[in-house]
């Protein structure tokens, strides 16, 4: 699997100017069944950096990604793409989900399916697909039914599928949550290659180590609110927000803000 060479990388990126970015959210709220799950959130996403959305379970990370991608509509506030090609913003985006959605077909057919309806002719499609399979180490699995792959391979396929669409923005919802360390490592390499090829990546994770490895910029979410947005180096050094600090210490439990246990008791809990 060759993800380090730059030539023939998908969406070769010499002079990529933004087409739909920046993405601006203004006072976005999302409500379901009477509960406010995203509260008055404003943020701007810009070209160039890899943004990691960090936060404990239930913070609203998945919802935020889906709101940005357009899969759900906000109850209040606006989600606006401000670049020049805004008439069809979804065309320039792609998303990878926590559990890979595999069509009941072969690997190559899964890749072909996404590309088929984009008006790309057969020859070009085949080339694109071969290229992407090489860069994600899927070439030898081309004819295998996607459902028979291991979870790690399936997620690699999902990422390859998204990458083949040449997205300007790639959303990833906890992409390695279901994977073992080896698969996680290989996927992070691919993510790195995608970033190098010029795609803006906005991903969520609750894995601090991963965030440290990949992030350029960090958004910290807690209970549907954006509590801090900062450069990665600054955030991991010392976050401004106190809850962010607790989270970094591994102390933040989603159901309980007031009762922060002393470190010894937390250590016991983690060892159980």
């Amino acid at each position, binding site marked *: 699997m060759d993800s380090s060479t730059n030539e023939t990388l998908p969406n070769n990126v010499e002079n990529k100017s933004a087409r739909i970015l920046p993405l601006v959210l203004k006072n976005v709220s999302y409500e379901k069944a009477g509960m406010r799950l995203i509260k008055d959130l404003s943020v701007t996403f810009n070209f160039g950096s890899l943004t990691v959305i960090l936060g404990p379970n239930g913070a609203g990370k998945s919802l935020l990604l*889906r709101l940005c*991608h357009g*899969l759900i509509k906000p109850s209040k506030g606006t989600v606006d793409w401000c670049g020049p090609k805004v008439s069809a913003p*979804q*065309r320039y*985006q*792609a*998303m990878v*989900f926590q559990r890979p*959605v595999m*069509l*009941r*077909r*072969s690997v190559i057919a899964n890749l072909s*399916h*996404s590309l088929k*309806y984009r008006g790309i002719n057969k020859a070009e499609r085949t080339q694109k697909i071969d290229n992407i399979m090489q860069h994600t180490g899927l070439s030898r699995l081309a004819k295998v*039914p996607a*459902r*028979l792959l291991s979870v790690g391979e399936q997620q690699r396929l999902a990422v390859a*599928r998204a990458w083949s*669409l040449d997205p300007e923005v790639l959303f990833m919802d906890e992409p390695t949550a279901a994977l073992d360390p080896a698969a996680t490592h290989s996927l992070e390499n691919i993510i790195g290659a995608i970033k190098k090829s010029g795609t803006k990546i906005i991903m969520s994770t609750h894995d601090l180590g991963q965030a440290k490895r990949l992030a350029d910029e960090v958004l910290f979410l807690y209970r549907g609110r954006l509590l801090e947005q900062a450069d990665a180096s600054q955030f991991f050094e010392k976050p401004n927000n106190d809850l962010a600090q607790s989270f970094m210490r591994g102390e933040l439990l989603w159901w309980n803000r007031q009762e922060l246990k002393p470190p010894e008791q937390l250590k016991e809990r983690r060892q159980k």
Partner: protein
Amino acid sequence: MMEIRDAFAAAMALIINFESGLAEIVLLSLQVSIIAVAIACLIGLPIGAALAVFQFPGRTAIAVILNAMMGLPPVVVGLIVYLTLSRSGPLGTLGLLYTPTAMIIAQICLVTPIIAALTRQTTEDLWQEYAEHLRSIGIGPWRAVTTLLWDSRFSLITTILAGFGRASAEVGAVMIVGGNIDHVTRVMTTSIALETSKGDLALALGLGIILLALALSVNAAAFIINDAAMKRHG
């Protein structure tokens, strides 16, 4: 029961002597049912999958009505189609009554709801799984429909076989719109009805055995093909 033994004997005699009359009836039965099911699939498969994908007011009502239509009494459908195709009816000028085409039309009315309702059920489950991904890549609802249908193909075989079973087994509709005319619209089921009314119960039962054997063969063939294909494609 002596009739059962005589029935098997009658069935064997029919097959061994290979009466051309029997071949004609079997062929017509298969033609009518297969064509009806094929057309019902063309209509019912997209409708079923579309009901799973599209959200619109009245969606649930349509689904419930479709489910109810699975139980349409064939004789009622036959009557309605008869009144429609009759010379005194709205489509009388087509002159379709008492032809195999009329029988096919009646069976399409009976089979399409089955195909549509069962397809909706099958594809709905798959749509739950695929929805976010398909919407993310922006392929549009009708392409989503074809994607769902293709990916559900192995489960849909059972649906199609259910439709075929209904078509080949019914007698009420084809009797009324076909007229059971010798050499023209006489099929297996109407032949059985005729022989019963002539009191030739052994022959009627014999024909019934042949009809069952036919249905069994079709289902067995479908199962084998389906099984082999599934093993190939996971």
